[in-house]
């Protein structure tokens, strides 16, 4: 067993490695990862759109997988590696190739959804490479990488809403970085 030993406790010490940096925090059990990132660690990239799993603006990578940080209790993630949009670029000035593609393709208007779109697209590229099918995948044998055409990209990014409707250019940008 781990967590609180005394029933009735409301906070637990929780260690999260965020963008390569370990943080040990006393976390109120009620706090979701999104709030810890934005309020405790001052990483404002992940956005609070709906706070209910309905928009994808809060998408980050936990242990390499894309997830909605608004629905994950931080305490339950003790020991996890978290990557946010702030951790995509390297140490130098260079943007991540996907970030550069979003700039080159003008894949945003207001930019509110962009951090979530970027993290979601990165997670999605790994899923396809690992052979994860989507609703529109046909004729790809189990376990083989799934080639990504525009329909695949659109379906796989359907968990990220864009109120500005930048979708066609988001697909263009993602197509640019497909290996």
């Amino acid at each position, binding site marked *: 067993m*781990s*967590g609180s030993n005394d029933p009735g406790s409301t906070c637990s010490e929780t260690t999260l490695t965020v963008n390569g940096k370990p943080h040990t925090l006393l976390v109120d059990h009620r706090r979701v990862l999104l709030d810890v990132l934005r309020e405790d660690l001052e990483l404002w990239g992940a956005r609070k759109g709906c706070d209910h799993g309905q928009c994808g603006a809060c998408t980050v990578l936990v242990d390499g997988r894309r997830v909605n940080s608004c*629905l994950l209790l931080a305490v339950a993630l003790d020991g996890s590696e978290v990557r946010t949009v702030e951790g995509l670029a390297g140490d130098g000035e260079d943007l991540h190739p996907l970030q550069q593609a979003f700039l080159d393709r003008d894949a945003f208007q207001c930019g509110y959804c962009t951090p979530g779109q970027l993290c979601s697209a990165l997670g999605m590229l790994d899923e396809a490479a690992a052979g994860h099918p989507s609703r529109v995948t046909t004729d790809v044998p*189990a376990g083989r990488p799934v080639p990504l055409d525009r329909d695949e990209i659109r379906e796989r990014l359907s*968990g990220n809403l864009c109120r500005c409707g930048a979708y066609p250019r988001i697909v263009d940008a993602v197509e640019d970085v497909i290996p």
Partner: protein
Amino acid sequence: MKTFDYVRAASPEEAAELFAARPGARYLGGGTNLVDLMKLGVEQPDALVDVSRLPLDEVEELPDGSLRVGATVRNSDLAAHPAVRERYPVLSQALLAGASGQLRNAATTGGNLLQRTRCPYFQDISKPCNKRAPGSGCGAREGVHRDHAVLGHSPHCIATHPSDMAVALAALDARVELYGTEGARSVPVADFVRLPGEHPERDTEIAPGELVTGVLLPAAGAGLPSAYRKARDRASYAFALASVAVVLRVTDGVVDQAGIAFGALAHRPWRARRAEQALLGAAPTQAAFEHAVDLELSAAEPLRDNAYKVPLARSLAVDVLTRLARAAGA
């Protein structure tokens, strides 16, 4: 949100003990439904027993040809599993038709099965709802109920079960494996999820403190032609208005095995036993499919604003049956 205790269990036995020692506890899977409902004030647990890291994250092929799926296998991993894709395509398709990539990465098999209804009155604590607050009335019956049940509802509740996965499991004759302080048992998915009757507050047959440890997919459905089709308000990332899962075997020009289940029509995945009976021994023609599906749906009792679901479900089912029969070379 009120404060709560949090503990993480290392084994099913420990989970059941931790739960039993904490009045007002809930199990926590991926949290994608429970945390949402806690934010809305619909769920107000005093303690969470985290079962998301239990060593139940394997998909295991058993010697008799069946497949056991652990309760903490994530929806995305289950949909991608080669044995599921090759032997139970209907299950992979149903999972991939639900939610989003992000949500499926977090959602567990156990949590998916036990997710609560998306009825807007259930989710709004200022409204009457017999499921959330027994005896307070059903806000949906005379209110907004376009998404609600057309089969098996009661005067007390007209909600639907929101899971796509469960519809495929019902068609496949899958069983839910349960563990509690009283021991282990297993129940067919199609009976595990209840009809509302006079007790809509009880979604399933699970006992308080019982843990879902896994789901068993029987060998009988393995490798048969099967498919899932879902109708919704937008192309992706939305709950079903109606859906259907079908497993079909055609031998020597006649149907000799059929598993048909409807989603979003009832408080449980609706196993279409009358339609299945009508098809057994029949030639797999469009007319036979239409006849069988109509027999099943003749039991429908639509409400003021959801009669559209009956013809919608009919065309989904006839389409999937016809396609599968064609694929089977009939």
